[in-house]
């Protein structure tokens, strides 16, 4: 067998056409093809494929994790957005309400002040009216007193010195005139 291998190596190619059809080298090639193939398969199976599967799996899980996290973040963002929008609406309502209240309060205060002022004015007016009335009464009393005094005076004069009717009338007129002017001067 060794000898035939030598012979084929020597240059049998020329006689048998393609060197691939030289049967003397078949045995070792069959053997080593099988051995090489299974050796490579064992090596790849043990040292290469697990590494690739491992890295691919971990990347796949990482990506799906990241996607999940992104989805969660998106939901969280949406939640926050609606939350803030709600808060914004509430804040606007509160502001509007506060404004309205302030407006009402100021109107109320203004009305109150006006009312108080009116009351005050009415009170003062009443007081003034009363005072006027009192002054009037006082004046009337004074007039009455003066009239009595005058009539007493007239009577006295009539009694003391007789006077004529014309004189008396003139004197009374004078007196009345005096009286009529005196309170106004007063």
């Amino acid at each position, binding site marked *: 067998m060794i000898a035939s291998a030598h012979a084929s190596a020597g240059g049998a190619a020329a006689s048998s056409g393609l060197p691939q059809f030289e049967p003397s080298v078949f045995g070792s090639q069959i053997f080593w093809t099988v051995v090489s193939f299974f050796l490579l398969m064992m090596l790849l199976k043990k040292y290469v*494929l697990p590494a690739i599967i491992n890295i691919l799996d971990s990347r796949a899980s990482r990506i799906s994790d990241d996607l999940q996290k992104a989805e969660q973040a998106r939901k969280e963002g949406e939640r926050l957005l609606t939350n803030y929008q709600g808060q914004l609406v509430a804040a606007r309502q509160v502001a509007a309400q506060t404004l309205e209240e302030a407006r009402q309060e100021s109107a109320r205060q203004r009305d109150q002040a006006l009312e108080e002022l009116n009351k005050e004015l009415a009170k003062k007016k009443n007081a003034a009216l009363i005072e006027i009335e009192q002054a009037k009464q006082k004046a009337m009393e004074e007039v009455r007193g003066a009239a009595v005094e005058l009539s007493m005076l007239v009577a006295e004069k009539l009694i003391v010195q007789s006077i004529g009717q014309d004189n008396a009338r003139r004197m009374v007129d004078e007196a009345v005139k005096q009286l009529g002017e005196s309170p106004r001067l007063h």
Partner: protein
Amino acid sequence: MDFALIAAAHAQTAQQAANAAPKMDPLHHFQVVNYINIAPLGFDISISNSVLWMWIVVAVVFGLFRYALRNPSLVPGRMQSVAEAGYLFVDNMINEIIGHEGKKFFPIVFTLFFFVLFCNWTGLIPGSFTVTSQLIVTGTLALAIFVFCIFLGAYHHGWKFLGFFVPHGLPPALLPLMVPIEIISFLARPVSLSVRLFANMTAGHTVLGVLFFFTATMAWFGAWLPFGFTVVFTGMEIFIGFIQAYIFTILTCVYINDSLHMH
């Protein structure tokens, strides 16, 4: 007499010139040379250039994958991307053809693809040896796949696996014609599988050998043409090396699928 002598002398010089001229031997590349003869118990396991390059292929494939995965990271580097792409390429092939059950054949298919691919590619290195240009190598692989598929079919279907040779929905009258055809086409599988790869590799390297011979022997002003062709054809051979490895592997998947599911 003079004339005859001169003619004889001419013939002799022509013969000498022919002997001195470089001989074209594009098949030299396929010559298996035993380096170390080993034959325990008469069984020849000699180490030849073919065997040496099988070992180199095993080392290169394993070394490249180990190098690519020396520190695997979630964000892959270039080599790691290529290794992962190789994995996914074979994974897709199995998923598409065999389906989910194909997972358990992954190591075989994966190894087969990269073994054949790198046998094809390392053969393009000048001075190397193309393992897949040896019919006995491709034949061994194809026959092993064939036998494996028969056992797989027998394991999964028992005697029903013989129904593989009876096409569905055929009028019974045609059975005597169709069953032998099916059997022949089934038996032709390892032949076509192995011869396709072997012939492609042999033809490609023979063409390259012829072109290189012309490049080496032609005058400088003519040599650039065959040399340019060798460049183009080497690129072509890289592509063919991939395509043939792909075909070899995908047909293996098809055969495995047939054994699992019949058709």
